[in-house]
């Protein structure tokens, strides 16, 4: 039987092919000649991936063999798309990827056993909440499109929600692993405030996020992750239903009372109204126009209409929030479906890790991380395709952005650590080969 690590290495082959072919396609469309620069890009990226592979081989020999190649595939794909938009951005993104790999390795090295996270759960929770609200702080907070999602430290912009999402899942997994017995056995009317308290706190936090960060998308992502965890922990649809209803009620309340959110919703319902279409509705309208231009097969890498004669791009935020629209534009319905499928495969492997995990905390951690990851994909792709109102979260591994790449590689590291713990050969474990 082929070992897990060999399967991982083989899984990296399509990554190398994709990144080389992608860069070549972009270069051809740009200069009508292939320079060996595309091969260099492919080789460097593949080199990084192979390095990560050997690192995993050494430190996490039994971990899931597909998660890393899937993430690398998405990252390679993102790099090609970003390169197509702007060479300089692609160079920076590659640097972010290197930094992300450093964080990945550091997490694996420092966190030999993820159970040790349970000890710091309140610290992690508090730190995450602080992170989430930092964009509202004066001086360092930054507002984009009316939402507070980033902080600025000098030249560096940083999206704390990306890190907070990992922290909050760690806290919730740990908390629910401990209290789930009560929540499962207790009848809903008899559950005391003591048990429900923290859940109310989470709900309250989601509502506060709606008000303070003003971003429907990220609060939906957080609360969705939370409900997923609650469901996995308790198997009780009733609790999830109560939670969902509370979120819906809160969202509806704020939607009619906070102008920023109600604007977002009215834009979502009809972005093509005159005036709106060139103003607040411009982003989503351009997103849909770009997708319409893609058709079944797309225009091909680098062949869509993006740059405007006067500078700038016709598709706003093409490298971050709206990158999925650019993917549909250039690779068509088929290419975009393939990308969604890769995310679904990633989610499948993540949930597989949760299935195989041996204890409650590990199961909840893996399921929660996977759920919040998948939720993020749904929120941004759903926003871009007008399934839900468009909000500003990144497409994991694909969008440009250091915070996103680093945080998602940390998330991947945690999943692999849990997986290593679940799949390791008990005998070898006793041998101390961690």
């Amino acid at each position, binding site marked *: 039987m082929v070992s897990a690590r060999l399967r991982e290495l083989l899984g990296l082959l399509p990554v190398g092919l994709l990144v080389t072919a992608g860069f070549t396609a972009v270069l051809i469309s740009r200069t009508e000649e292939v320079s060996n620069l595309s091969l260099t890009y492919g080789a460097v990226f593949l080199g990084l991936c192979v390095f990560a592979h050997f690192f995993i081989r050494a430190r996490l020999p039994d971990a899931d063999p597909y998660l890393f190649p899937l993430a690398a595939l998405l990252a390679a794909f993102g790099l090609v798309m970003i390169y197509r938009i702007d060479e300089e951005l692609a160079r920076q993104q590659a640097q972010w990827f290197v930094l992300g790999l450093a964080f990945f390795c550091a997490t694996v090295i420092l966190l030999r056993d993820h159970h040790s996270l349970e000890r710091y759960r309140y610290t992690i929770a508090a730190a995450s909440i602080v992170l989430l609200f930092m964009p509202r702080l004066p001086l360092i907070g930054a507002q984009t499109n009316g939402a507070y999602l980033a902080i600025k430290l000098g030249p560096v912009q940083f999206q704390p929600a990306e890190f907070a999402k990992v922290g909050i899942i760690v806290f919730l997994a740990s908390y629910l692993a401990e209290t789930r017995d009560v929540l499962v056995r207790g009848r809903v009317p008899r559950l005391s405030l003591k048990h429900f308290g923290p859940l109310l706190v989470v709900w309250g936090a989601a509502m506060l996020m709606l008000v303070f960060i003003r971003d429907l998308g990220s609060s939906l992502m957080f609360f969705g992750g939370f409900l997923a965890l609650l469901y996995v922990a308790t198997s009780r649809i009733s609790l999830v239903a109560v939670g969902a209803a509370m979120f819906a009620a809160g969202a509806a309340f704020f939607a009619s009372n906070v102008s920023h959110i109600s604007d977002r919703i009215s834009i979502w319902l009809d972005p093509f109204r005159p005036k709106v279409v060139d103003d607040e509705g411009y982003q989503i309208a351009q997103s849909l126009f770009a997708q319409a231009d893609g058709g079944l097969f797309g225009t091909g890498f680098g062949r869509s209409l993006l740059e405007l004669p006067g500078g700038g791009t016709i598709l706003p935020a093409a490298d971050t929030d709206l990158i999925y629209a650019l993917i549909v534009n250039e690779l068509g319905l088929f290419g975009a479906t393939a990308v*969604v499928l890769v*995310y679904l495969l990633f989610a499948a492997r993540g949930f597989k890790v949760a299935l195989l995990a041996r204890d409650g905390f590990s199961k909840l951690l893996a399921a929660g991380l996977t759920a919040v990851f998948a939720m993020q994909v749904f929120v941004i792709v759903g926003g871009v395709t007008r399934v839900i109102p468009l909000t500003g979260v990144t497409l994991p591994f694909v969008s440009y952005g250091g915070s996103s790449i680093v945080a998602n590689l940390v998330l991947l590291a945690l999943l692999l650590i849990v997986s290593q713990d679940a799949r390791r050969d008990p005998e070898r474990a006793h041998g101390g080969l961690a």
Partner: protein
Amino acid sequence: MNRPIVHLFALFTLLFTVLVVFTSRWSVLEAQSLTDSAANRRPLLEQQKIPRGLIYARDGTVLAANRRVGSRQTQRYVRRYPTDSLFSHAVGYSFIERGRSGLEQSENSVLTGTGSEFATLVQELSGEQEGDNLRTTLDSRLQEAARSALGSRRGSIVAIEPATGRVRAMVSIPDFDPNSIPDSFEELSSEPSSPLFNRATQARYPPGSTFKVVTAAAALDSGRFTPSSQVSGRNNKRISGVPLQNFDGEDFGQVTLTEALIKSINTVWAEVGSDLGKREMLRYMRRFGFGTEPPIDYPRNQLAPSGIFDRRGRLVEPDDAIDIGRVAIGQERLQVTPLQMAMVAAAIGNDGELMQPTLAHRAIAPDGRVRQRFRPDRLRRVVSPSAARGVAGMMTSVVERGSGTAAQLQGVRVAGKTGTAERGAGINQAWFIAFAPVERPRIALAVTVEQAEGTGGEVAAPIAQRLLEVALGARGATSSGPAAAGGF
């Protein structure tokens, strides 16, 4: 805890399926309506990325070409008009900032290569799209002659081949340099002299006596008159109850119909119009093309119909009260475009058959194949050949010994009719419509000058003479000048 995890995965599979469904909704199912949306600037920008087809005169002169601008990523093509203002109205312009006009608009699908289904399929497969070149019917020598003949005088000239309907020249003064449209559109459109306005197709001028050609054609075709019919040229005849004066109040006595056209006797032609009656006159006008925009391959928003307009500027209905006698001599809120008057001359010159006026000659693929020939199209028979020949004979006499002598050529018989519509004290709208050679007309034209300090015979006929010289390669019979002109 494993069952809920499986459920969760099922839920996300469902959610991701929704994403794929919505992606297909925008990218495929509703793609067309999104592409057609008015707010979508992509199609406009895309069209700039492909080189538009070139526009040529019939003689091969390039009238519209492309200039490549921008760096590799933002490379696009911008229109360039090598002949500057010479063809400004006929060819028009095409700029992303200001849209399109003229042939650039009416033949846009040819010029962008979206005209034929087959072409787009090939282009889709090869990934390269390029527009077809357009060869027009316009003759750059004649166009040049027409513009220099008008000089700085406001007015318009339209020249048509009677047998084919092909437009050989279309001039409107003042004109503009289409190359300057992106920078100075605002100024041009607010200029009081309206240089962007195509007087040839949009101006509504009083036709003056040139309209007597229509009345004469109706009179002969009705069978109630012949060129030698005796009619009374008395001054101060009552037309619709109101006395009508001849030019300078002259009294002519009994004359033939031909004589009445040579001398352009108002009272004769008003009486002929009244005798024919409103319905008959309107029927012949409609056959000549009055009442609707001419069916030329030119943008509809740059075409005006000719006809009788009421005080609110609307075309009158047959049931409205009309002083048809005064209409018959070109008065009474009758307003015409130079194009319409050229069509009148062309129909008479083509034995009474009106050809559809066209500007496009053929569409040529980038590889040189002829993609489409725009063949001459017969619109309708306006009057019988004998009536047309009768009118042609009368018009020939006008040039030989009437008000149109300034248009005579050596060795070539010219048929014509002058027109002078008073616009103020000593200020006229001067007209001349003509075709030649009479035996087998190769060119028909309408010349009009605004604010002329002279009659049609003095101002417009010499211009027509110069154009006929150029078009037919003939020499003028007299040194053109007001002295040779007998009248109006």
